[in-house]
């Protein structure tokens, strides 16, 4: 019996020890575990790691594999979502993060060193709808769109909609709103636009990658939303441009700031981005002044630390990272069109260049 008790005691001690170490490492959070992780501890200096936006993923896989053919550099990109990418960068477990929204104030205060945003591509959010009897392309204005998503316009033959679509016979079907149920950069672009054009939306709902929707159903991912739209007559939902094009969905023309009705396309998104871009590139492309620009579009950014000497990173590694990013915003842009991404506008590329040159290693600029 005594023997038994002793065994039990030693077993408890061993397990307690194990649990103790385990708990310390999870309780301590990412900052401690990050220091011994991939970015610095990676012995393979020819592999860079990145994490973030799922929107960027198809473009990145193409661009990075092309770059690998030329320079032999491997890039391991994990598409875990923009928020996750920022978190991984904060924990210094990746070389770069990618996000569809610039870092917000709370994320900025949580990070130990300044981060720079480099625009890499632009995307648009389109409004797909299901009206089987309507053959013409539907036209929508900002106010009407906001009213639909606020739930104040409930029927398709509402006078506000018919006034925009003269000569089109709209049915008396109820409008069913489909939105994203998962937090997403697409939602962020869409709600940023609505908050910009509608006071009601700004006060009642606001903007973010997930919001409290006043009406409608949620679908997971672009496929979830387009599934709801395709299945339900009278449905309207917002989807990424690339996804809508690939799936042959009907989408609406949007009225932009100058009053033109613009069909979303790669060209009209690039046009929307051809505006004066601030030096930090953290600008929303929604409702821009561009006369032929599609109003619901946005940049996607790569995020890196401004000072690249952290966690014993080598100068070599930092240089490789910056060369890769520089290639991405120049030569890499040729792959955008085929994948339905909007290439960066000349204004965006020159701002991106300036930002990349501001990155330093031990205080000295890396790219000349």
């Amino acid at each position: 019996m005594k023997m038994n008790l002793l065994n039990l005691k030693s077993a408890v001690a061993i397990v307690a020890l194990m649990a103790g170490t385990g708990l310390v490492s999870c309780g301590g959070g990412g900052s401690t575990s990050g220091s011994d992780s991939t970015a610095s501890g990676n012995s393979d200096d020819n592999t860079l790691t990145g994490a973030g936006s799922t929107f960027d993923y198809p473009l990145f896989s193409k661009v990075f594999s092309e770059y690998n053919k030329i320079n032999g550099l491997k890039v391991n990109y994990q598409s875990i979502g923009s928020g996750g990418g920022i978190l991984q960068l904060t924990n210094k477990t990746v070389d770069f993060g990618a996000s569809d929204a610039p870092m917000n104030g709370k994320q900025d205060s949580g990070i130990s060193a300044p981060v720079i945003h480099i625009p890499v591509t632009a995307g648009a959010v389109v409004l797909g709808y299901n009206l089987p009897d309507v053959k013409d392309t539907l036209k929508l204005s900002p106010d009407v769109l906001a009213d639909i998503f606020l739930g104040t316009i409930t029927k398709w033959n509402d006078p506000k909609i018919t006034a925009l679509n003269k000569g089109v016979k709209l049915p008396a079907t109820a409008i069913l709103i489909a939105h994203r149920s998962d937090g997403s950069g697409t939602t962020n672009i869409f709600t940023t636009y609505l908050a910009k054009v509608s006071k009601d939306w700004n006060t009642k709902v606001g903007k973010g990658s997930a919001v409290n929707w006043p009406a409608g159903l949620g679908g997971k991912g672009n496929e979830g939303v387009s599934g709801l739209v395709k299945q339900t007559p009278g449905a309207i939902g917002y989807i990424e441009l690339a996804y809508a094009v690939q799936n042959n969905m009907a989408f609406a023309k949007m009225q932009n700031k100058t009053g033109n009705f613009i069909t979303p396309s790669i060209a009209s998104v690039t046009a929307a981005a051809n505006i004066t871009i601030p030096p930090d590139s953290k600008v929303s492309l929604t409702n821009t002044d561009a006369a032929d620009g599609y109003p619901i579009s946005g940049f996607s950014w790569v995020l890196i630390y401004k000072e690249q000497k952290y966690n014993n990173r080598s100068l070599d590694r930092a240089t490789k990272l910056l060369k890769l990013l520089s290639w991405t915003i120049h030569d890499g842009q040729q792959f955008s069109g085929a994948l339905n991404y909007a290439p960066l506008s000349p204004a965006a590329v020159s701002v991106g260049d300036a930002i990349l040159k501001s990155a330093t290693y031990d205080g000295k600029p890396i790219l000349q």
Partner: protein
Amino acid sequence: MDTSVEKGIVTRNDLPLRVINSTPEGIFKAKRRVKRSFRQIRTETVFRRTLTIMGLLMIILVLGILLTLIIQSLPSIKSLGLKYLWGKVWDPVQDIYGAWPFLLGTLLSSFLALIISIPFSLAVAVFLGEYFPKGWMPDFLKNAVELIAAVPSVIYGFWGLAVLVPIVRNLETHIGVEPVGVGIFSSSLILAIMIIPYAASLGRSMIQMVPSPLKEAAYGLGATRWEVIRSVVLPYTKSGLFAGILLSLGRALGETMAVTMVIGNTSLIPKNIFAPGNTMASVIANEFTEADKPVYLSALIELGLVLFLVTVVINLIGKKIIDRFTNE
């Protein structure tokens, strides 16, 4: 057994009374035997120790998960307090988080699924356990039921969205509720199908374990098959059947992927069982990747903690009920 020693018969129960032969070979043999039994004892100790460690590891694991959930949800508990549980608004933009709509959605969809599934799982269990335990048809049915448990939940989700939702939408137009198709009812139907195997296979093995003398006695008294099932098999197995139902409820509470695809994902409080809603597991899966504020992330983890506690409470209640049943 007590009488075996008195009768002079040595059985395995009387090992301490083993007599050792005193001839040299006998002693040598006995020594070898003793040596071997020392090794046996050591093996025994190591084996027991391994079992203890494994058992303790499981406890540590569960406690570790609970502790992690509590620590990570501290920021949210601090800023929102207990109001979190019955708050009706989930607004990530203004950092207002209330879990009530999701708590309600989880309980509604799971219990509805349970109610729908019980007749089927009981019928399958009785059919396979009592009526046709052997043969190609029951084997086929048994495998089919087990296959239901092996199908990935995302496939149920797609099937539900493509096939079940239009049917439900049709039904909704007939009974006059808003014809949305997706909602609590659709997700309960999908969940009901998914959880049938858990209660059915546990119930089947329980029913097969009913001692045949009991059943034979009942038949001998002139009972019909239905009467045997009602008054012998079911009372004998009720704790096991209930445990199976509890297991399937646990599965329904935690199911994520299939539910999120057909429940409609709105944070409004469901008005009836056909209305769209959301569950806690589904909200976590949907919003976790893009939770970009510390309180938001913490509120989602707290949702996980609430789900954990709900499961624990339901299990405890279930255990109590099983105890009541077996003590009767």
